[in-house]
């Protein structure tokens, strides 16, 4: 039970220029990540999930709360990060924007190695390892980003993150800008790397089916708070929080007969994070709302092994629909429909004209 990353009671506020108000981006977030585990952080715009990622890698300083890496505090002053030496890395959403268009791929990948004061041969060796790890041709090291496809650019982004052999990689929507085929390849790649190197991931995304597939555990965020947290299968098969349930009901799987059942369909828009309501943040949109929700913030309830939820009526939410593993059902259906290859590589029956 030696978590590599522990986040406790994290808060982050951004002041608004020209006014006394603040944007409350993160409101009391706590979670931990075990070695080799993927924690999926899901939420919509305004949920604060990107801000959490940035606090963890040190781009932002938290307003309150602590972040510990292997038990050592890394969230207070800049100096405390020096011992990290590339153990925590980051992959961005837009591959084209995160790579310097005037730097060759090889230079981009070896950039994180620069503060580590290694000699050139070692840097080159590590860069070569990294680009092989992401299954790209080493010849590409001399190319510029504009010569690569979006999928290849994102692989470069991952190579750059992996070159320092990190223990934890924070990925912020790494596949949202990609086409479905490239997306699937990147996810594949990430899983392979995790199996080989036991890297832990904090996978930040709004794409629930991808998160379901790649995460061991998942945390659902709404307006800067984690409303439900637990094993991915537990949370997705039977959500206990109305927001988690509503989110899942909007996922559309490419199968006309399969729909994720939910008693929650969320209306309206996400309220502004500047004037957060008293009580539960979802109260204005929640079909399960009772008077208590508007005045009191629900405490944490434990509903299973490592499964927490913040809702007064979580039992009603969980009971309102039967547990169902729709994602897995879809996988099996997909295998049935698409899995028609024999060992020789040809489909079993072909119509030819």
């Amino acid at each position: 039970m030696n978590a590599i990353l522990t986040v406790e009671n994290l808060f982050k506020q951004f002041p608004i220029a020209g006014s006394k108000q603040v944007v409350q981006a993160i409101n009391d977030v706590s979670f931990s990540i075990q070695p080799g585990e993927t924690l999926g952080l899901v939420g919509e715009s305004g949920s604060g999930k990107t801000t959490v990622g940035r606090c963890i890698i040190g781009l932002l300083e938290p307003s309150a709360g602590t972040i510990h890496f292997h038990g050592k505090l890394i969230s207070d002053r800049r100096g405390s990060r020096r011992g990290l030496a590339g153990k925590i890395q980051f992959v961005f959403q837009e591959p084209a924007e995160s790579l310097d268009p005037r730097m060759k791929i090889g230079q981009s990948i070896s950039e994180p190695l620069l503060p580590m004061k290694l000699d050139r041969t070692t840097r080159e060796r590590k860069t070569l390892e990294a680009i092989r790890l992401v299954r790209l041709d080493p010849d590409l090291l001399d190319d510029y980003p504009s010569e690569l496809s979006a999928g290849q650019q994102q692989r470069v982004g991952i190579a750059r993150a992996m070159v320092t052999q990190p223990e934890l990689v924070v990925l912020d929507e790494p596949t949202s800008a990609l086409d479905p085929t490239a997306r699937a390849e990147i996810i594949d790649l990430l899983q392979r790397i995790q199996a080989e190197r036991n890297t832990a991931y904090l996978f930040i995304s709004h794409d629930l089916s991808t998160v379901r597939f790649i995460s061991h555990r998942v945390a659902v965020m709404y307006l800067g708070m984690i409303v439900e947290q637990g094993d991915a299968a537990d949370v997705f098969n039977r959500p206990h929080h109305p927001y988690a349930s509503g989110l899942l009901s909007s996922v559309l799987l490419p199968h006309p007969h399969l729909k994720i059942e939910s008693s929650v369909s969320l209306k309206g828009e996400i309220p502004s994070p500047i004037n957060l309501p008293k009580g539960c943040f979802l109260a204005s949109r929640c079909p399960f709302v009772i008077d208590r929700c508007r005045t009191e913030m629900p405490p944490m309830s434990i509903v299973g092994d490592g499964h927490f939820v913040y809702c007064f009526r979580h039992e009603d939410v969980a009971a309102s629909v039967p547990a169902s593993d729709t994602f897995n059902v879809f996988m099996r259906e997909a295998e049935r429909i698409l899995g028609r290859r024999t060992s020789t590589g040809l489909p079993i029956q072909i119509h030819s004209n």
Partner: protein
Amino acid sequence: MAETSAAPLIAIMDLHVDFPGANESKEVLKGVSLTVQPGEILGLVGESGAGKTTLARSILGVPPTSGRIAAGKVIFEDRNILDLPEPELRKLRGSRLSIVVPNPRAELNPTMTVGKQIAAMARIHLGVDRAEATRLALAILRDVHIPDPRRRMNAYPHELSGGMAQRVVIAMALICDPAFIISDDATSGLDVTVQAQILSLLGGLAADHGSAMLFITRDIGIAAHFCDRVAVMYSGEIMELASRENLFLRPAHPYTLMLLAAFSHSPKLRDAWSVPETGVRQTQKEGCSYSSRCPIAQPVCSERRPPFVEIRPGHFARCHFPVSHE
């Protein structure tokens, strides 16, 4: 739903669109043919670069910058609208044929309030006066469930959230009660709960007004639940066209199968239906444009362009070896 013999509302026939470049012209649409029946929602799925936006805009006669409609017809209300002089075509656009665009905040005029822009549509196409146009604009804003519409009328596009701006663009497309709506990637970039609301809104409004829709998207999951029939586009051609039942439960074209495999997240299935990326994008001159990426390609595939065959009623695939599910 099989291909009925009822007259289609709009028929796109063999549309060719190219982009004349400095050295050679690039053909983006290579002979696209589609029909949309009255009241139906036809989905169009494909990846980026397939030509979906080019198709959406070319149907209205406005291909993207530097594009040129080289050949083809768009038959609507018994005439080829591409042959019409520009002022005639302008009268149709926005009133009988309208489009919902993605990235609404970039597409709306930044120096005019949204109310004025919506009202302008009514004034120009319906010929009503300013007061009546404002009233219609307010009514349509209510229909698209914009909260507090009176205040929002006076907002500028940059003051609205993505979801709000998308609703404004939908309002503009619907205010004149069009017969045919093209929705070009109208929900990408939106939060998934907002997307669900927009989809139900679009579907409901289309049904209420009796309009037909061409729903273009990169997310095949939406197509599976929202559209009556679905067309799959690759490299400027329609590769498969079927009812949603048939397309998702009995897909025939290898590209469709590859898309579904990618969405299933199963590495086994993906390996089965794709060819390892060589890193070089080859343009197929002869034969099937998909053959270089097709795992079941045979020599004939790089020699002869496959015909668009009907493999069961209403289900077409452009393939020499469509996959069977019998």
